[in-house]
């Protein structure tokens, strides 16, 4: 074996480098697959929602069917809370990137509190909305769609909670904050989905 070839072999230890024939970065591919699966999941619920809405007897003028009403204002305030939580999430990540740990922790706690406020407000909304899942197909798709989103918020809160615990234990640095970045992406995704849900269900 030549000296050149030997040098090449000495550079690498351990098992051979994995073959990556697809040339697609595994993290990008994973995120694409995740978004695609979420789009299909929410898409199926939106399809059911639009079908029920179009075939309701009062379409398109009366939605939801009389005598029910959606709490547009409360949901609007809730939307503002959730969108604001994305800003604090972004602030938290930027802070840890700059090495500002107090601002990072403050941002994470604020994000968590606002996410929790959103979820609790949604629960209160469910209890006071004036209809239940047995009151018609419209009620079923309403609770299904908003509940599906609520489940995503719950998962996001769990992730944020873990970040906060790790943050208070001194984890994460300006160089190593991948554990904040990924929950941040998920949180923004949950926000985007809520914008769509709020627009479609409450406003249009």
């Amino acid at each position: 074996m030549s000296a050149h070839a030997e040098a090449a072999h000495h550079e690498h230890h351990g098992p051979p480098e994995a073959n990556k024939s697809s040339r697609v970065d595994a993290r990008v591919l994973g995120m694409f697959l995740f978004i695609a699966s979420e789009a299909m999941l929410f898409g199926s619920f939106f399809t059911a929602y639009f079908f029920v809405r179009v075939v309701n007897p009062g379409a398109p003028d009366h939605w939801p069917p009389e005598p029910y009403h959606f709490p547009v204002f409360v949901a609007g305030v809730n939307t503002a809370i959730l969108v604001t939580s994305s800003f604090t999430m972004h602030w938290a990540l930027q802070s840890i990137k700059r090495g500002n740990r107090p601002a990072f922790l403050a941002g994470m706690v604020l994000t968590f509190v606002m996410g929790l406020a959103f979820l609790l407000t949604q629960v209160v909304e469910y209890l006071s909305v004036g209809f239940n899942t047995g009151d018609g197909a419209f009620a079923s798709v309403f609770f299904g769609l908003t509940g599906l989103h609520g489940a995503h918020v719950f998962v996001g809160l769990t992730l944020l909670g873990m970040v906060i615990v790790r943050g208070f234990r001194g984890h994460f640095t300006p160089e190593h904050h991948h554990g904040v970045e990924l929950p941040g992406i998920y949180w923004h995704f949950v926000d985007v989905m809520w914008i769509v849900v709020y627009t479609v269900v409450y406003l249009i």
Partner: protein
Amino acid sequence: MESPFRSEAAAFRFLLISIGAAALVVVASWIDPWLGFAVFLALVGVGTWVYLRQRGPAPPKAQIHPDGPPDERRVLVVANETVGGEELLEALGEIALAGRARFYVVAPALNSRLKTWTSDEDPARAAAQQRLDATLERVRDIGIEAAGAIGDVDPLVAVEDAVRTYRPTEMVVSTHPEGRSNWLERGVVGALRDRYDIPVTHVVVDLEARDRTL
């Protein structure tokens, strides 16, 4: 293409864009429901167009550390239907005459679109194997040391697999003339030059012209 959720900052930007888009749809819907629908479709169209036009950063060129003696040229030959072409054999002969050289021929099992999508690869692989065997025999007859194998249906994947086992110092890619290439061959030469830091020689083999002269 770049994912709008490739990073937290990108996802945050996408959220802000979503809020703006939703506001436009809501205002248009309050004016007229059909206008809202039209605005929604327009936004989806614009968003799709922008997304498809985005190009992610090009991946770094793969560095190949060749095996074998430093004075030996290790040539990876990529060819399928043109594998027995005179132009290709001439090019290989020139390399062999120039000095010490070894050749490894990869014949991607090129296939039609429909058969690729339905994984009907066996006939294509059998045909590629026949052509490869005949060519290797012919090349060895004229004194060139060569080995070879059938590669993946996608030439880029076939090359990537061969590079990992053979570690060439250069590549020779043989294709049909432009316009007559298999759909899987299009853009392969440019893609290989972008991906690898070794010389890539393109040989065009016009089998139809040869058949006309016979």
